[in-house]
Each structure stands twice: as C-alpha cells, then as structure tokens.
C-alpha cells in the first residue's frame, strides 16, 4: 500500500538511459515485441525511420511491397498464419490513405496489426503541407485504437500500448502516426517496457459462473444441440479446448468461413460450412435444432440470412469475448462472456458425455442429398468445361489438407472454402467480413512469411487478381514461395451469378477481359502455365506444387457456373436452394 517510500528510493537511482532518435526507439520497441518481418513502403515523411532500419537489416526483415494496400493484406496474412501481430510501415498522405482498405478488413475480421505511418512535421499539421492528410481521423472508424505522436519520448510507451491493444481481447488493427520531427528527435531512451494493462480497457469480460452453469444445463437437456464456431476459437488459441468440448458433448458442429480449420475438415463431428454458400445440412438444421451454441462467431448476415426466421425455435447460448457481440444480431438466452480458452473448459467440465447419433445422422442425410445434387457434379464432372470444384478436389488430393489456402473474394472463394480440406488450424486465410477483392495475392505473401514451412496456395479469380497483381513484383524481389492458382472464368463470377439468378441475366459490366497471366508472370520471372483441358489439370497442379519457388497456374474454368447451395438474400437459412 505504502508505495511512497519505494518511489523515493527508485528516484534516487536514475535509470540508465541512452540517447537515441525516435526512429531507433521505434525499431528497438518492435524487436522487443518479437517483430521479425515488416511490410512497408517508404516515402518522405517516414524517411527517418527508413534511415534507421538501414542499420537493423540483420534483425528486422523489411519486405518492400508494391502498394501500401498490399502491405496491409500481407500484414494480415502474416498475422493470420503466425498468430503474431502484423507490422506495416507507410508514409504520410497517399501512403497512409492506401492503408484504409486493409485496416477496414483487419478491423472487421479481428486481425491484430500495428501500422506505423509517417506524418509531416508537427508544426505543419493542419497547414495542408505536402503529403499531409488527417490519417488519425480517416482511420478512426477502421482501427481498434490509433494515436498520433508528436514527441519522441512518447514512442516506447505508445508502441507498447499499440501491441497490447492489437493482440489482446478481440484483436484488431492499431495505427500510430508519427510526425517527422518525432522520428528525428534525440531523447533519453530508458528501454522498452511492454504494456500489460490499460485502466480503461478490459480485453476480457469476467467469466460469470452462473452463465456457465446455465449453458451446461441447457446443453445437457438438449435433444438436438448444434454448435456454430467461428474465428474466436482460433484467435483464442482454443482449438484443443474446443475439440475436447465437441468430443465430450458429441454435438454436430458447423463453421463460419473464418472458423474453418479450428477442427479438421474430416472430424466426425464437423458437419460443414454455414451461411449463404455453406452446406445444406448446417443451414437447414439451424432451424431444427433445440439449442444453438455459438462459439466465437458474430452472426454475420451472410451466416444468418433472414434474422426473423433464424433459429427461432432454439435456445441460444453465445460464447464471445466481445460483450458488444452478445444480442447484437441474435438474442442470446445464455450469454457466456469471456475468452473461449477459459470458458470452454469450464463448460466441458459440466456437460455430460453424450452421442447424438440420430441427430447426427440427420445431418448426414442432408449431406447425401447435397452430394447427389451439387457436390458430385462440381467435384467430379466427366464432360464439359472444368469446374472450380474439381480444381479444389484435385488440389486436396495433392496437398492432403496440409497446405495454407489463401483466397481472394468471389465464387472461387466460396468454392475454396467449401471444398478445401484443412487438417490444421490457421490454414484458411480469406477476407470474410469486408469481402475485399485483391486481398488474395498480398495476403499469400504475408501468409508465407508467417508460416514459412507450409505450402501456401493463393486461389484467386481473374477479377480479383487484377486488383493487386503488382505484388508479383514483391514475390519476385523477395523470392516468396507462393503458388498462385488463378481460376479464370472470364467473368466477375459472383456478381454475374446474382445477375443471372435475380436480374434476368442482365449481365451488367461483369464481362472482364484479362491479360495473358502466364506471360505476365514470366515478365516477373515467375514460372507458370495455363491449363485448358481436364486431362492436364492434375499434372499441372502437381508441377506447381513441386516447383521450387513461386509459380502461377491459370486454370480456365466454366464461364457460367454457379455456386450452390445458396441462401438468397432476404431468405431464411432453411430456404436454401440447391440449384
């Protein structure tokens, strides 16, 4: 209690300090936080930091991206495969505004990131100086926290806070804007102290025992319980705890696209994917279960379909670390606030060991229907044009489910998430909430740095690839071993599908032409091949995977294929269409 005396003694012994620039303090802080890779792009207002990093090349790997947006997606890919915080550098003005899409993507998909932007000199703020933009206010809605530093002495403590906020609780992106004078300013550096607590910030709500007990009672009395799991399981590193819960309870479990891989695809209790293009059984059974247990997911509208017809018959148990998610979209009968790494074992201890054989068989019966009406012809067509599904099927045969699959956004993304096999966690890297076309290629670069021992396959459509294809330059320069698999249907396929189904085939600006992707890769010294015949597909995929270094494989697939099943917008999950 009486700290006055202690304070007095510490004051008499001043801490040892060294005189360093703000830029050096920043890099020292990054190293102390365990950063090994930075994705960035230099410019005028961040030059002092780039000057400092010149002497840190042995400790910090800096990957020069080709556009700052690519930097943020690479940071996201890195964070998602490694579980660490992605770090991105950009300069002021256009450099900083180019971060916005990646920040918004990281914010909605809860990806931990620290972005450092340079800013004009503090005395120039508000004068419309060259490359000045109000980055703090532009990024406020798309960051978990942001802060502008105008004095170098603030750098160590603000950086420590930034890392703590980015990675704790529900993770998210943080941006620090550092004026050029603060980067240059010499000051007495006392060393780096990580942040472990902020008094106004509660990363994890307190676990309430009564809710655990109520949840257990509901689960134990349930005849038809159903688990929905999301990225919260991965973010909480609670895969083992989750598996133990599912296996003891015997409850069929379905995943959101960001939850894929939390338990292996072929786990007997994994019944498939939720949502608009998810599997038949999980969608229909949502409206047949009696207890719905949502774990680390947020009932996105692409998962729930029409809310007033969503699981109305069921009691809902919602486990989430973010109290703002409870009752946001779906009312919870039992809100289990907390980190699922803590709450799941408490719940597992109270539930009875069960097998829901008949209930599980119902899911398998729906699977059979889906297999016969959709999956068979998608995965194993014998005639006609190639399908995206058969490419995924062949890929699974070769990777056996051990590759990291990065996708872009659109039809190929839904097909990849539906059919890719995942044995391991942190293997499905995709833009879920924001649906950012152009995410795939740069995210794959980051994913490879985050998981250097894994095979990384970037599955991208012909549209999305053209949004960020400049990152081929990054792949070339740093020899990033990513396998790029372009599924080319010569259309902006998902919009075309909607126009076919809902707009009487009025194909409005979805017809997209492409350059010769293989030649394009070649000009970046990246090996590649185009496949147009089914007979060549398996061999080409094998060649791609066995190739030393990056490789681009373009597969020409059916122009007008649709992704099914589909819950049309405004419809209930149980009104899912098989064709």
């Amino acid at each position, binding site marked *: 209690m009486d700290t006055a005396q202690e304070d007095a003694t510490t004051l008499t012994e001043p801490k040892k300090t060294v005189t360093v620039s703000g830029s050096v303090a920043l890099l020292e802080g990054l190293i102390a936080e365990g950063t090994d890779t930075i994705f960035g792009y230099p410019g005028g207002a961040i*030059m*002092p930091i780039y000057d400092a990093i010149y002497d840190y090349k042995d400790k910090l790997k800096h990957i020069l991206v080709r556009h700052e947006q690519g930097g943020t997606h690479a940071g996201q890919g890195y964070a998602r495969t490694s579980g660490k915080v992605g770090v991105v550098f950009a300069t002021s003005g256009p450099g900083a505004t180019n971060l916005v899409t990646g920040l918004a993507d990281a914010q909605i998909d809860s990806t931990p990131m620290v972005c450092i932007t340079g800013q004009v*000199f*503090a*005395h120039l*703020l*508000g004068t419309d100086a060259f490359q000045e933009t109000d980055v*703090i*206010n532009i990024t*406020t*809605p798309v960051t*978990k*926290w*942001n*802060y*502008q530093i*105008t*004095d170098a002495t*603030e750098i160590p403590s603000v950086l420590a806070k930034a890392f703590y*906020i980015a990675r704790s609780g529900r993770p998210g992106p943080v941006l620090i804007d550092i*004026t050029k*004078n603060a980067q*240059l*300013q*010499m000051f007495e550096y006392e060393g780096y102290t990580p942040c472990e607590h*902020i*008094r*106004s*910030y509660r990363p994890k709500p307190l676990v309430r025992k009564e809710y655990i007990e109520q949840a257990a009672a509901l689960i134990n009395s349930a005849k038809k319980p159903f688990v929905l799991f999301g990225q919260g399981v991965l973010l909480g590193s609670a895969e083992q705890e989750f598996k133990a819960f599912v296996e003891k309870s015997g409850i069929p479990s379905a995943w959101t696209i960001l939850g894929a891989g939390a338990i292996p695809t072929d786990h007997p209790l994994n019944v498939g994917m939720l949502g608009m293009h998810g599997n038949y059984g999980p969608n229909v059974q949502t409206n047949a279960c009696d207890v719905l247990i949502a774990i680390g997911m947020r009932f996105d509208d692409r998962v729930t379909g029409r809310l007033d017809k969503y699981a109305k018959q069921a009691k809902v148990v919602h486990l989430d670390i*973010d*109290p*703002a998610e409870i*009752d*946001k979209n779906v009312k919870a009968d039992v809100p289990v606030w907390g980190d699922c790494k803590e709450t799941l074992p408490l719940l597992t201890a109270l539930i009875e060991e069960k097998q829901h054989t008949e209930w599980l068989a119902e899911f398998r019966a729906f699977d059979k229907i889906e297999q016969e009406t959709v999956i068979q012809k998608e995965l194993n067509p014998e005639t006609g044009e190639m399908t995206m599904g058969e490419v995924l099927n062949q890929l699974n045969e070769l990777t056996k489910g051990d590759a990291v699959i990065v996708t872009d956004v659109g039809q190929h993304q839904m097909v990849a998430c539906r059919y890719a096999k995942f044995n391991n966690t942190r293997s499905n890297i995709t833009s879920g909430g924001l649906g950012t076309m152009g995410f795939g290629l740069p995210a794959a670069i980051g994913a490879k740095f985050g998981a250097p021992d894994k095979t990384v396959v970037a599955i991208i459509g012909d549209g999305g690839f053209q949004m960020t294809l400049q990152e081929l330059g990054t792949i070339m320069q740093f020899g990033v071993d990513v396998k790029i698999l372009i599924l080319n249907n010569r259309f902006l396929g998902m919009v075309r599908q909607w126009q076919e189904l809902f707009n009487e085939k009025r194909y409005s600006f979805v017809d997209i032409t492409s350059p010769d992707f293989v030649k394009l890769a070649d000009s970046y010294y990246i090996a590649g091949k185009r496949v147009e015949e089914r007979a060549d597909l398996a061999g080409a995929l094998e060649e791609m995977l066995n190739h030393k270094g990056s490789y681009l494989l373009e597969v020409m697939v059916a122009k007008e294929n649709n992704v099914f099943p589909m819950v049309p917008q405004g419809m209930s999950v149980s009104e899912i269409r098989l064709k």
Partner: protein
Amino acid sequence: MSNSNETELNGKQEFTITVYTENRIGILNRIAIIFSRRKINIESLNTSPSEIEHIHRFNILIHETEEVVRKLARQIEKQVEVLKVYYNTNEDIIWQEMALYKVPTDTIAERAPVERLLREFGARAVVIRKDYTVFETTGHREETDKLIEVLQPYGLIEFVRSARVAIIKDSDGFNRKLREFERREPGEDVIENEFLDKEKNVFSM
C-alpha cells in the same frame, strides 16, 4: 419533451447516455462516429472534466429505442479509452440545461415586468449594462424555451443554451470505483502538439 404519442408509435424516446472516458484527444470523434455511422442524430452533447482528475464525463442525448441505445452503449464501452457507459430514460435522471438571454436594458427596464419574470422563471441577471442586460436561467427545455417566448417582444438580442447535463438518480456505485481507479493508477496528462507556430524548435533534416 413530451413524445409520449410518438413513443407509443415507434418505441423511440429520449435517452441520456453518460460516458466516462480518459481525457484523450480524439475520443470525442471515436464516440461521435458511433452515432453518425448509424445515421443517428445527437440532440445534445456535453463533455467536461468529471469530479475525478483525468476522467471526463460525456452526456449525450438521443431519441431512439432502448434496443438501439443498448447496442450503442456497448459499442461506446468497447472503445479502449472509455471506462464506463450508462443509458437512462428521463425518469432515471435529474437534468438541467442552462440558458443565457441578452436583451436591451432600456426596453426591459421600461416595459417588462422584470421582477415578476425573474421570480417566475427562477432567472437572475448576470450582467446589467447601459445598453444590454444578460439573464440566466436553468431548467428543462420547455422552461428555457418559455422565457425566449416571453423575452422576444422586448427585443431579445441573443440567446444561447447549453447541452443537457444530467445526474443519474441511482448512481453511487461507479463513482467510488472511479476514485479507486484514479488513486491506484492515476491517469496520464494529455500530450498536445507543442510545435504549432514554433518552427524554430522543430528538428529538421
């Protein structure tokens, strides 16, 4: 103030949201965009230091349904620099707005029943000069509105009203906690830009 008819129709009513925050640059914007993102109008906003050093108190008045207000409150509380959020209906709080009225002294002295006005509206004269007089009163919206109406015929020159400030009737718990916070872990001072207009003091290349 009386929205009882409307309330029955769409479930919307006045809610006063009380937010305790760290005193940090930018927190006002972080809170404001939670409303503007959803196209919700802030009817009145007051922010000022609270009784505890480093901790600021916001009073935000909006007209919404309780369901929406509950979600807004959780989104606000989620902000890193927000300590606590409460939302209350008018029944739960004691509130006041303060208003200042500037009127020409001669008209008011000659024609207005000044003494009766002051007594009736609980107003007082803050400044009396030869050319103008400033009255002040506090009260609910309809009360301060009423005095505008009354003073209008006497040549009201200028009028200004503060935002709503509100005390929650049933609120002894959190104040203690806040004091405890500040005692154990004092807040940090705001660091402002020291360099505006001080070009000479800025390091440059």
